[in-house]
C-alpha cells in the first residue's frame, strides 16, 4: 500500500479580530538560487553560514543610481562609502564603475590606496583624523572634509610643517526637517558656524577650499530633506563667491538613501515605501539647478550613498539548527547565523526565506541565532513555514554594514563569496580559523 504524504501535525488557534488590511501573502517566497547558482551548491562548497554577493546586482543598482542623477544634472560623481562595505572585491567593482573612494579613517584611507585608488580621488570624512592620517591625506592630495575647528587648526599646523597646500571641504550640519538632526558632525549652518569656518579657511594660506559636504542622516525616507540640504549648501557656495570671488568645485550631499529593507516598527514593507533613486535625484538636482548658482558655475555633485547601492546585492545563507517551543507554546527556531554577523538585524526586520518549497502552514515564529546570549534574536516575530533541522534558509538585503560591523564571537566569521557576471563563484574573504585569531595574541614571557 502506498504511504500517505506526511505533514507535521499542527493545531492553530483561530483568532478573531480586525483582519489585516493586506491579508496574508498568497504564496511563501522562496530563494532557491542566487544568480543561477543553487543555494544548496553554494552551501555545500563554502559552508554555512556564508555571505554571498552578486556582482550583477551591484552593477545594475549602480547603473540605476547613475542614470537617475546623470540624466538630471551635468556633473555627477559617486564616491564609494568604504564603511558600508570595504571588501576589496566589492570596492573594486565600484571603482571599476567610476566611483571615487569615501573614507572615514586612516585604515580606510590606507585600504583605498592599497586597492589602487589615486589619492586625489579620495574624500576623507569623519571626526577622527590623527596628525598621521592628515599628513597621509595631504601627501596624497586627497580632499579632507573638515569636521571641527580643532581639525581645521591641526591642518593649518601640519600644512605649515610640511610646507604644502591641503585641499579641503567642510562638513556642514543643518536642519532639514529630519529627526534626529545629525549635528554632532561638522559645522552648523543655522548658527553661522559653517560660514565662520569658510571664512577662516579662505584666509588661510595653505588651505584650498574646494567643496562643501553634508550628510543629513541615515535611511532618509523624505527626498525633500535633501532638497533643503542642497539649497542651504548652494547658499553657502554663492555667499563664498560673493565675498571671495571663488567658485567652489563641488557640493557633496553624502549618503543616507534608504535601502529596500524594512525598518523595525514600520507598517509597510520597505520595498513598497522607499523612495527610488529618481525621487532623490529629482529633489537634489532641482534644488541645485534652481538655486542662484549660474549654470556655467554649477558645482560637481558628489554622492556617497552606500546602503542603497549594496544592501540588495548581499545574502546570508544559513542553516536551521533547531525548532523548539517556548514555555508559552510559541514557536522558536534557532539558525546558525547570529546577530554578531547581522548587525543590521538590530534595526531591520530582515527578510528570511526558505530555499526550497516548505509546508504551506505558516506560524508566527521567533528566529534566534546560535550565540549563547539572550540578545541574539534575528526576527522577533515572522510568519514562517515549518522547516526541519538542516534546512537551508536565505536572508536577503544584508550587503550593507554587516561585513564591516560584524564581530568575532565564540566562533569563526564565515566565508564571503562573490558571484561574478559570468555566474562563477569566488571566495572574496576566507573563513577565519584558529590561526587567524591566535596570530595577534601574545603571551607574556
Amino acid at each position, binding site marked *: 500500500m502506498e504511504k500517505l*504524504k506526511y505533514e*507535521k*501535525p499542527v*493545531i492553530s*488557534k*483561530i483568532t478573531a479580530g480586525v483582519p489585516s488590511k493586506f491579508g496574508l501573502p498568497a504564496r511563501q517566497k522562496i530563494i532557491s538560487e542566487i544568480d543561477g547558482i543553487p543555494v544548496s551548491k553554494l552551501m555545500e562548497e563554502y559552508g554555512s553560514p556564508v555571505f554571498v554577493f552578486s556582482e550583477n546586482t551591484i552593477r545594475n543598482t549602480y547603473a540605476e543610481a547613475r542614470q537617475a542623477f546623470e540624466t538630471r544634472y551635468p556633473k555627477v560623481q559617486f564616491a564609494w562609502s568604504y564603511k558600508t562595505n570595504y571588501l576589496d572585491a566589492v570596492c573594486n567593482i565600484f571603482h571599476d564603475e567610476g566611483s571615487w573612494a569615501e573614507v572615514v579613517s586612516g585604515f580606510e584611507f590606507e585600504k583605498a590606496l592599497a586597492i589602487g585608488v589615486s589619492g586625489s580621488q579620495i574624500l576623507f570624512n569623519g571626526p577622527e583624523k590623527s596628525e598621521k592620517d592628515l599628513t597621509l591625506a595631504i601627501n596624497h592630495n586627497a580632499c579632507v572634509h573638515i569636521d571641527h575647528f580643532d581639525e581645521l587648526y591641526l591642518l593649518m599646523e601640519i600644512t605649515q610643517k610640511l610646507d604644502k597646500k591641503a585641499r579641503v571641504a567642510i562638513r556642514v550640519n543643518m536642519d532639514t526637517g529630519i529627526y534626529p538632526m545629525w549635528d554632532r558632525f561638522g559645522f552648523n549652518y543655522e548658527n553661522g558656524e559653517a560660514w565662520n569656518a569658510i571664512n577662516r579657511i579662505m584666509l588661510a594660506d595653505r588651505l584650498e577650499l574646494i567643496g562643501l559636504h553634508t550628510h543629513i542622516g541615515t535611511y532618509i525616507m523624505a527626498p525633500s530633506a535633501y532638497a533643503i540640504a542642497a539649497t542651504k549648501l548652494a547658499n553657502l557656495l554663492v555667499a563664498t563667491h560673493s565675498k571671495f570671488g571663488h567658485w567652489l568645485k563641488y557640493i557633496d550631499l553624502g549618503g543616507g538613501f534608504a535601502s529596500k529593507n524594512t525598518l523595525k516598527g514600520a507598517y509597510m514593507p520597505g520595498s513598497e515605501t522607499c523612495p527610488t533613486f529618481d525621487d532623490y535625484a529629482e529633489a537634489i538636482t532641482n534644488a541645485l539647478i534652481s538655486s542662484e548658482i549660474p549654470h556655467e558655475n554649477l558645482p560637481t555633485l558628489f554622492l556617497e550613498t552606500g546602503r542603497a547601492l549594496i544592501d540588495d546585492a548581499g545574502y546570508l545563507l544559513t542553516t536551521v539548527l533547531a525548532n523548539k517551543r517556548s514555555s508559552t507554546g510559541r514557536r522558536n527556531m534557532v539558525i546558525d547565523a547570529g546577530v554578531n554577523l547581522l548587525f543590521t538585524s538590530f534595526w531591520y526586520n530582515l527578510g528570511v526565506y526558505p530555499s526550497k518549497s516548505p509546508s504551506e502552514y505558516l506560524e508566527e515564529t521567533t528566529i534566534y541565532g546560535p550565540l549563547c546570549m539572550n540578545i541574539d534574536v534575528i526576527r522577533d516575530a515572522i510568519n514562517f513555514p515549518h522547516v526541519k533541522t538542516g534546512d537551508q534558509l536565505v536572508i536577503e538585503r544584508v550587503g550593507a554594514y554587516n561585513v564591516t560591523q560584524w564581530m568575532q564571537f565564540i566562533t569563526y566569521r564565515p566565508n564571503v563569496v562573490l558571484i561574478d557576471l559570468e555566474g562563477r563563484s569566488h571566495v572574496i574573504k576566507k573563513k577565519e580559523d584558529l590561526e587567524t585569531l591566535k596570530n595577534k595574541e601574545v603571551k607574556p614571557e
Partner: protein
Amino acid sequence: MEIVKEVKISENGFVFNSKTGDSFNLNPTGLALIKLISEGKELDEIKKEFVSAYEVDDLTFEKDFYEFFTLLKHHQIMVQSDPLEFK
C-alpha cells in the same frame, strides 16, 4: 493525561474548547493524531501506526509528536497537573 471533557473535535478538524472559549483548526495529520490520542493510545502504539501509514521516520514523528503534545497542553486541550508526569 487525557483530552479534557470540555473539548469537542469535529470530523473536519475544527476544535472547540468550551472551558476557555477558544477554537482551533487541525491539519489532516493533526486530526489523525488527536483522534489516536483521544482513544487513549500510547506514543509507541501511535508511532507504529503513523510510521506504517505515512512517509515519515520514527524519530521525526517522535519529535513532532512531543511538539504537538506541548501545544495541546498550552491550549489547555490536555491538562498536565503534575510537571513531573511523563507519558
